[in-house]
């Protein structure tokens, strides 16, 4: 069976600087894959390249065996790739619910429905609202549905962003440091949430600095350093890999 996503020698250069060079790995279906590395190692660049926010300078990205590198973000989202951001990108002047329904794939109202305010419009919007509420409940933010996103706590916004990513019914979910800024108990429920995603048919690529979380939920871990893939494998193996330890220690030195 082809992997859900496969990276083949993906590189991304900014001017003369290589943010990613020849990164290759694949994401098997239904797995939770961790992506770690020191700051500036290229994790977010890789997320951007996969989600279409950025395009690779070189290399191929295959989704279900079909090349998708360089496609715009909205098309990749339609093809099943959703993501969250390291710096939360919720729309502050929309409510939590509106932020989630923004990404729903259930049909939205047509031009005529909207302009003539046909009765169908109310029904459609009610359905979308119900879908959005369900997703908010799943991430544990249902009570904030009608609060403006800008006024919510960091942890709540993180969870709502995950709900928005789930709203587009993705097959691949890219989470960029979802635990950052969360309290301990929030992290625990986040861990449960992520662990439950494969059962719903999702594959997850997780970038995270919280090693307990990474080691706890990931089936496999890839390590980046200065744009190069330096190690990959089971969590236990990676944890004891001297190259990985050196990369982290070296980074702390600098």
């Amino acid at each position, binding site marked *: 069976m082809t992997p859900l996503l496969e990276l083949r020698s993906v590189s991304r250069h900014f001017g003369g600087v290589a943010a990613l060079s020849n990164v290759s790995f694949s994401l098997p279906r239904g797995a939770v894959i961790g992506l770690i590395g020191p700051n500036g190692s290229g994790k977010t660049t890789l997320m951007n390249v996969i*989600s*279409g*926010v950025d395009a690779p300078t070189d290399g191929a990205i295959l989704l279900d065996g079909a090349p998708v590198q360089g496609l*715009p*973000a*909205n*098309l990749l*989202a*339609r093809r099943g790739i*959703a*993501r969250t*951001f390291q710096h939360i*990108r*919720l*729309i*502050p*002047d*929309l409510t939590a619910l*509106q*932020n989630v*329904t*923004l*990404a729903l*794939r259930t049909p*939205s*109202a047509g031009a005529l429905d*909207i*302009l003539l*305010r046909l009765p169908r*419009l109310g029904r459609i*919007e009610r359905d*979308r609202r119900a879908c959005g509420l369900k997703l908010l409940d799943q991430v544990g933010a249902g009570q904030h549905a009608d609060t403006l996103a800008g006024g919510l706590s960091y942890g709540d916004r993180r969870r709502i962003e995950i709900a*928005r990513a789930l*709203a*587009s019914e993705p097959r691949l979910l890219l989470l960029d440091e979802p635990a950052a800024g969360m309290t301990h108990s929030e992290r625990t429920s986040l861990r449960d949430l992520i662990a439950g995603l494969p059962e719903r048919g999702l594959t997850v690529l997780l970038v995270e600095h919280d090693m307990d979380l990474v080691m706890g939920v990931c089936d496999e871990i890839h390590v980046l350093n200065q744009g190069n893939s330096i190690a990959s494998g089971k969590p236990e193996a990676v944890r004891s890999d001297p190259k990985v330890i050196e990369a982290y220690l070296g980074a702390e030195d600098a």
Partner: protein
Amino acid sequence: MTDLFYAYHNVIDLCLLNSMLAFGCFILLGVNLFSLATGGLMAIGAYLSIWLTMQQGWSFAPALTAALVAASLAAFGLGSLVLRLRGDYFTMATLAFTEVVRIIALNWDSVTGGALGVFGIPQLTETWQLAGLLALVIYLIWAVRHSAVGERMRAIAADELAVSTAGHDVARFKLALFTASGAIAGLGGGLAAHLNMFIAPGDFGFLRSVDTVIAPVLGGVWNLAGPVIGASVLVVLPEALRFSAQMREILIGVTMLAVVLFLPAGLVGLPKLSRRRAAS
């Protein structure tokens, strides 16, 4: 009473017309597009509509429809080319479009009469038509804003990237809005042409575009009353300040500057501001 109405008939007409045109810019400002294409798009609507009513014997309604369609198509074409430009580059490209259209109009004697303009245009635009069409435009924008599409608009204004990673084609959405704003400009152009019996290419240049986009900024970019208030103020202010012929320009400038500096939400924010002052 009727005399009073007729004494300010044209002032009322211009308030209504300019308010409508301002909505064309309003919907674009809503997604962070500062467009100066209004003049050029209006010119297309204006010249097409008078050619149809004066040369081809069309009646007013179909001529206006044709003006609307033609300007929408022009906006669609222009938008597909220039919407990918960022910020000020987009603004400059739309300004270049307006100026190029104006200069073509200046040189295209057989249709536009050059600088001498076209006169004797039948006066077909009525106040009630302007009021009705303005109401229609306001209703349509209201309906869109109070739907999922309106939420998407607000989201694009705040964070385009978030919207596109949520699966929406932001470029296509903006193109649709730009086309809609072209429709408003084309309709406004046709109405303007049949309002004062005369048009010349100078009516549709840089200044027209600037005035149209300033109206919602002054009135308020987030409130549906904004464009109406902004455009009306810009029409009424020169009339109200006529008592001071010499200081008029300066006073208009000072008023504009005061709004920009002290009313972040535009003139619609004025009552709220004064209430707050009164309360504290």
